[in-house]
């Protein structure tokens, strides 16, 4: 198990929270909630070690499109980057509802 944290600049306020996914094989759980400061904070617990750079790549791409001040917590059980991106999108979509 490995833990990473990343911060990204944010310029929009978030209001709602969202939870998607499950910590099952090839999947992950995403908790998204408003962050009090002008920054997006991401914390990742992953079962697969050694993929810090890939996580950064996936999040870098996500935060080029997403600019809200959120706290995102991820519990990952070996999801592919594609699945991670999909769950992040779903969390954003759910937080809009």
């Amino acid at each position, binding site marked *: *198990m490995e833990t990473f944290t990343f911060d990204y600049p944010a310029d929009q306020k978030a209001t709602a*929270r969202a*939870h998607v996914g*499950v*910590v*099952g*094989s090839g*999947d992950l*759980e995403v*908790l998204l*909630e408003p962050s009090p400061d002008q920054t997006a904070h991401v914390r990742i*617990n*992953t*079962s697969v070690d050694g993929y810090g750079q890939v996580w950064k790549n996936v999040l870098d791409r996500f935060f080029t499109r997403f600019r809200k001040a959120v706290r995102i*917590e991820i*519990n*990952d*059980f070996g999801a592919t980057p594609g699945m991670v991106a999909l769950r992040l999108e779903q969390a954003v979509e759910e937080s809009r509802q």
Partner: protein
Amino acid sequence: MTAAVTDLDRLLSRKSFIELSARERTKALLDAGTWRELLGPFDRLHSPWLEMQDIVPQEDDGVVVARGLIDGQPAVVAGIESAFQGGSMGEIAGMKIAAALDLARQDHERGIPTRPVLLLETGGVRLQEANLGLAVIAEIHAAIIALRPHVPVVGIIAGLVGCFGGMSLAAALCSHLIVTPQARLGMNGPEVIEQEAGIAELDASDKRLIWSLIGGEQRAAVGLVDQLVEDDADAIAEAVRAAFRAGQPDSYRSQQIPQFLARLVAIDPALVTDGPALRALWGKGEQA
């Protein structure tokens, strides 16, 4: 022709219950618009033991407890998420269920008729929390038995993980147990039996055999569960409502001691080794 079209619509619109996550399952059983989760993921009550063993936790520890109404009456549904650690019972997961049952009992003692439902999709004790998993399962048993005189405790095993280990005892203690054909109910999982007793005792890879021994249809055919329902969320929700409307059973299966002891005496262990053999003895028509 019309019939065929209706069939297609039915196939397309059918909502599989097995498909649903534990959270969605709890929603499917509660009256629309009444669902409210207790100790949800944002409460962040996750296992204190998994991270010590390098295992990623889940923020709800794999159990969803939701309150709401069933048929307009107060209810609580506890659903086990089988995708997380095989639906295993750790300290928090198990305690969420035990606490929900105890709070439901306290409701009844105060005159609030809270209806309890358990979604039992579990391999049993979470090995990484071994003794605490076992301890909370004992507490779940105690809580079901204490609550049962007040209100039927309805259990559901939908599939596909099945209900095994100490939680199979919890299933057996429920006032009313609903299964689908995809469900399995047994104390020891097939793999464990193969491991402990050898492949000659049981070939765990033979799925047809496994379901013929402990699958939902077999359990229903020999009267070890109360109701067999197709894997359809609406049908299961209706079965739950009907179970509460029907009220208390005449007797609990786990208290039919003379009947089952007599049945055991009548069994020749050399002959009764497969599903059909047991159906011949205990099949529909013959009551315990």
